[in-house]
C-alpha cells in the first residue's frame, strides 16, 4: 500500500504538467487552465493552515514539515470519503493526484511548527512517559519525525489531536492495526487520563 503510493508520489513529482488528470470532478474542467505550480497551489492552503503550513491554532493543524506520503494519504482519504471531516472532504476533491502530490511535497519541504498553547505541566510529564511506551514506535523522535510517515504530533493544536482521536474512536477515520492495539492497551491501563496526559505532552513541546 505504502510502496504503491510512494511510487505514485515520485511519478507525480516528476509529472506536474498540463494534465487535467483522472479524478472525479476535475475531469469536467478539461477546458480550465490546469498545471498550477506547487507554490501557487500550496499558498491557497495558508489562509486556514497558516503561512507555509504553520498554524496559529487553536484547532486547525499545522502542515509544515509533514511527510509528503502522510499528506497524500490524508488528502486521498478526504477525497474518497474514507476519512470523515468537517470541511476537507469538500475541498480535497478539487485537486488531481498530481496537484495533491505537488502540495504534499511543498509542505514536506517547509519547517515544522509548534503551535504555542497552554498545557498542564504534571500531565505533560506523565504524557511523555506514556508517549514513549505507547506511541514512540511509529510517531518517532517524540512525535517529530516526518520520515516515519505518521502524522507529526509534537506541538499540534490540542483540539485537533482530540478531534482526531474521537474520529479514530468512532470509526470516522480508521486506525492502523498497531495503533488500535496500543490505544486499547493505553485506555485499559490508564483510562481517559492517559490520552489526556499524552495530548498535554504534545502541547508542551516547543
Amino acid at each position, binding site marked *: 500500500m505504502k510502496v504503491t503510493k510512494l511510487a505514485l508520489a515520485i511519478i507525480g513529482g516528476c509529472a506536474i504538467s498540463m494534465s487535467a488528470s483522472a479524478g472525479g470532478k476535475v475531469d469536467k*474542467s478539461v477546458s480550465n487552465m490546469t498545471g498550477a505550480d506547487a507554490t*501557487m497551489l500550496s499558498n491557497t492552503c495558508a*489562509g*486556514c493552515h497558516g503561512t507555509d503550513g504553520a498554524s496559529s491554532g487553536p484547532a486547525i493543524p499545522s502542515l509544515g514539515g509533514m511527510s509528503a506520503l502522510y499528506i497524500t494519504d490524508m488528502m486521498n482519504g478526504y477525497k474518497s470519503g474514507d476519512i470523515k471531516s468537517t*470541511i476537507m472532504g469538500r475541498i480535497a476533491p478539487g485537486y488531481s493526484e498530481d496537484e495533491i502530490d505537488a502540495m504534499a511535497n511543498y509542505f514536506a519541504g517547509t519547517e515544522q511548527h509548534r503551535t504555542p498553547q497552554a498545557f498542564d505541566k504534571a500531565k505533560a510529564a506523565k504524557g511523555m512517559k506514556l508517549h514513549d511506551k505507547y506511541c514512540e514506535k511509529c510517531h518517532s523522535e517524540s512525535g517529530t519525525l516526518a520520515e516515519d510517515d505518521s502524522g507529526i504530533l509534537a506541538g499540534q493544536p490540542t483540539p485537533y489531536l482530540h478531534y482526531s482521536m474521537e474520529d479514530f474512536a468512532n470509526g470516522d477515520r480508521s486506525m492502523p492495526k498497531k495503533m488500535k492495539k496500543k490505544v486499547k492497551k493505553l485506555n485499559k491501563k490508564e483510562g481517559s487520563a492517559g490520552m489526556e496526559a499524552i495530548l498535554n505532552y504534545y502541547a508542551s513541546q516547543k
Partner: protein
Amino acid sequence: MKKNMNRRDFMKVSGGAAAAVAGASIYTGSALAGAKGRVVVVGGGLGGATCAKYIKRADSSIDVTIIEPNKTYFTGFTSNLTISGMVTMEQLGHTYEGLTAMGIKVVHAAATEIGDSSVKTSDGGSYDFDRCVVAPGVDFKFVEGHSEEIANKSVTHAYKSGAQMSLLGEQIRGMKKGGTVVLAAPRNPFRCPPGPYERTAQIAAYLKVNNPTAKIIVLDPKDKFSKFGLFKEAWKIHYGYGTDNSMINWIKGAEGGALEEVDASTNTAIASIEEFKGDVLNVIPDMKAGHVAHANGLVKGDWCPVDLQTFESSLRKNIHVIGDSSAAKGLPKSGYAAASEAKVTAAAIVAAMNGNAAPVPAYTNTCYSVVAPNDAFSVAAVYQLAADKHKVMKVAGGLTPSGDKRNAAHREREVQYALSWYENITTDAFSDGKKLPL
C-alpha cells in the same frame, strides 16, 4: 523596533529621492540597486496586505509600499462575533509592524490620484511604481436619509468593522427589555454575502440570554441569500424561527423587505410596503467599488473589470484591482477570496518583473459563519480559471451538511475551526501573530 525605525526612515528618504526621478523604474547606484521594480499597494486591508507580503516573500528584491490611511486595520469578517461577546473588537485589530519588519514600506496616508507610474497621497506624497495594486474595499450607496455621518452617530451600517461595529454592539446591549432591532440587508452583489445573516444570529445569541423578549426584524430586498437553508435552520434551532415565538422575523423582497428610505430622527426604516421603527436600526447599504477606484478610472458600472489571471485592470495598464472591488466573475466577495486573488496577483507581478509569463492560477474560498456559541458552518470551494479566462470556475466545494445530515459535534468543531481560520488568515496577511485567546 529601533532597527525598523531606521529602515523606515531610510526607505522614506530613498523613496523621496526616487520621486524626484520621475518615471524612472530601475534604481542604480543606491542601496536599492538590483531592485527589480516597485509595487505600490493602495489599501492595506486583508487583500492589500496579503498581496504585499506574498510579493516580498517571492522576491525580496522587489520594492513594495502599502498606502493605507489607518494605523490599525479592523477586520470585517468575524466582527459580528463582537455582538455576542465571543470576541472583542480589540482582538480584531491588526497593525503593520510584521510587514515593515519584512522590508515592506507602509505609508499612513490616503491615496488620491493614481497616475500611470505614480500614486499621489493626501499628505502631498508621491510614490512611483512599475505596478500598482488597488485594494480599496467597498463604498456604499446610501438610501435617502442615510449617510456615513448618520451611520457614525446612530443608524450604523457597521460593515467596515471598527467604531461602528462597537457602537452597534453598545446599542444592542443598551436596548430596553423587549425592544426591537431592525436590520436592513443589501442587494447583491455585496461584501461578505453571509454577513447580514450571521449578524442576525449573533444579535439573537446575545438577546436570547440577556433580553429574551426582544425581537429582530430583518428587511431584505432579496428572496434568498447565501447559505440560505443553513441560516434558516440555525435560526429555527437556536432562536425559534418559523414559530409564533420566533425572535427573528425575516421579511423578504417579495413581501416588502426592500428598504427605500431611512428616517434617522425616529430610527425608522421605510420599506416598500410598511415602515419599521426600531429601538436599534442597522442599515447595510448596497455597495460599489471603493472610492479610489471610481476616482481613477478603474470602474465600469459599480465594480472593476480585471483579467482573472493577473487581476490587471481591463481599463488601465499595470494597475491591478483585487478584493471586494474587483469584478472577479465566479469568485465571491469574501475575505478568503480577496486573499486568494492577492496571491494570484502577487505571483503574476513577480513573474512579470522577472521577465516570465503569468503563471497558471489557483484559487480557493473558505468562509465560516458562527451562528451560536456551539454552532458554525462553512462554505468551501476550489477554483480553476476557464481556459478562455471569462470566468473563475468552481471545481469542487460545498456547504456544511444540514437537515438529516446535520452533525452537532462537527458544528462545535467548526466554531473552533472558524476561530483558527481567523488566526491563520490574518497572520498570513499581516504577520502579526496570535490575537484571539486560546
